[in-house]
């Protein structure tokens, strides 16, 4: 996308950004990564074709504002980032609609289930290996979560068995699934 301020940050600007996120540089780095990851997903969920670029544009703009003297208030720093990200998104909609792959405009062709009726053998093999690397309880949880003809009832039963609400179950499974995702990605890259 063509964003007027899509250029990189100077080291000074980047340091200033980190220092406003948290006094401890390591913690500031973690916060930076968390916000960036979330912005990427938000742009993705909004249907933007270049979510990572847009997250960087957002950070660049925030950093420039900080260099101009704006101060982040810790309680509202996320809101400030979101405000800037939303402006970036609006600009994308206005000036580069073809890069927006929302429902009607789709830059990428939609995925097709018919393309791949069976999981690729290699991917499945990686998944099996990665499942073995998970602690047994997490492995069983993930598999049970995906089991069953009547999946909704199956999950409700699972949540009841564990004595936790459905959304807590979803989050717990997702934490394990994220580990699997990273592991499978690494396995396929080898």
């Amino acid at each position: 996308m063509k964003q007027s301020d899509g250029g990189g940050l100077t080291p000074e600007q980047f340091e200033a950004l980190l220092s406003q996120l948290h006094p401890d540089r390591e913690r500031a780095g973690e916060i930076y990564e968390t916000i960036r990851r979330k912005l990427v997903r938000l742009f993705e969920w909004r249907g933007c074709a270049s979510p990572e670029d847009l997250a960087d544009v957002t950070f660049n703009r925030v950093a420039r504002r900080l260099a101009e003297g704006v101060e982040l208030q810790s309680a509202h720093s996320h809101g400030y980032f979101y405000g800037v990200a939303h402006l970036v998104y609006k600009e994308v909609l206005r000036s580069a609609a073809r890069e927006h792959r929302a429902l009607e405009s789709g830059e990428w062709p939609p995925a097709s289930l018919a393309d791949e009726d069976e999981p690729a053998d290699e991917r499945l093999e990686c998944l099996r290996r990665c499942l073995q690397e998970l602690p047994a309880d997490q492995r069983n949880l993930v598999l049970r979560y995906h089991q069953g003809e009547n999946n909704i009832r199956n999950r409700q039963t699972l949540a009841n068995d564990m004595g936790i609400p459905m959304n807590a179950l979803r989050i717990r499974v997702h934490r394990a699934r994220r580990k699997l995702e990273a592991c499978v990605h690494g396995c396929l890259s080898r």
Partner: protein
Amino acid sequence: MRHDPTDDELLRSYLLGTLPEEEAEPLEDRLLWDDELFLLSEAIEADLLAACDRGELALEERERVLRRLASSPQGRERLALARSLNAEAQAPAPVVPFPRRLPSRPVFQWFALAAVLVSAVGLCWYGLEHPHGGEAAPWIAQERPAPANPVTSDLPLPPPPPPPVAQQNRPPAETPQPAKVICQLALMTLRGSESTQRLNVPPGTGVVEFQIGVDGMDDLESFHVVLRSPGGETLLNKRGVKPRTLDGVRTLVVELPASRLSAGRYEIETQGIAPGSEPEDLSPLSIEVVRSSNG
């Protein structure tokens, strides 16, 4: 962070692109600062992809999922993972029943390690008082012939306890120190196991140290441990207990003066706390304390 029960519907609409803009904006703002809500959103996204793969969605929803959530390279990767997980979960390979956690607090029907810790073998034994902390195991544990292996859902047999200190080939301590009884337990649960761990507390015992294995609960960062007497009195109420690594096993370590433990049945209730989540009740543990004359 406790979520409104309607959050999942809200997120589902958002992910499918059917949420009105005036509702989507505040939701996105929340997603940025609420880590738990963000995780839930990703979890629902994964559920939608998995449901799409299984053919459980209506045609319009299916089209929306494929176009909005599965058309980017990353989205295709996620769809592929969901497809693989669906396939693997339906595979005929047996899945070990998932260990269950407590359904509601006062129902003491599921007990953990006790199911497989035969009381005659037990994992409670004497040691001498010796400070330890952080990553270091207590010396009494270090002297075990095998690493501590609190029972998991796969039910490995517990290692045999080391012999009482008096039986070990070691010179006696120069200065008498209060004896410590170490009691190993684990929070993995087995439904229907009603047995109780026997804890023998001989005269002269100064401290009882409970080592509660919490392996496989990586998402729970800290714990709230409560020990109740046979009469229901709270003898120990410790919040923010962080697991230590003892012999490679995440373990909660709490101590209690032995003088507080008379003979009878005690309950240990534990809650686990994951960042940003409500405390989660874990299975209660039951201890039968025996005050013997000779240990």
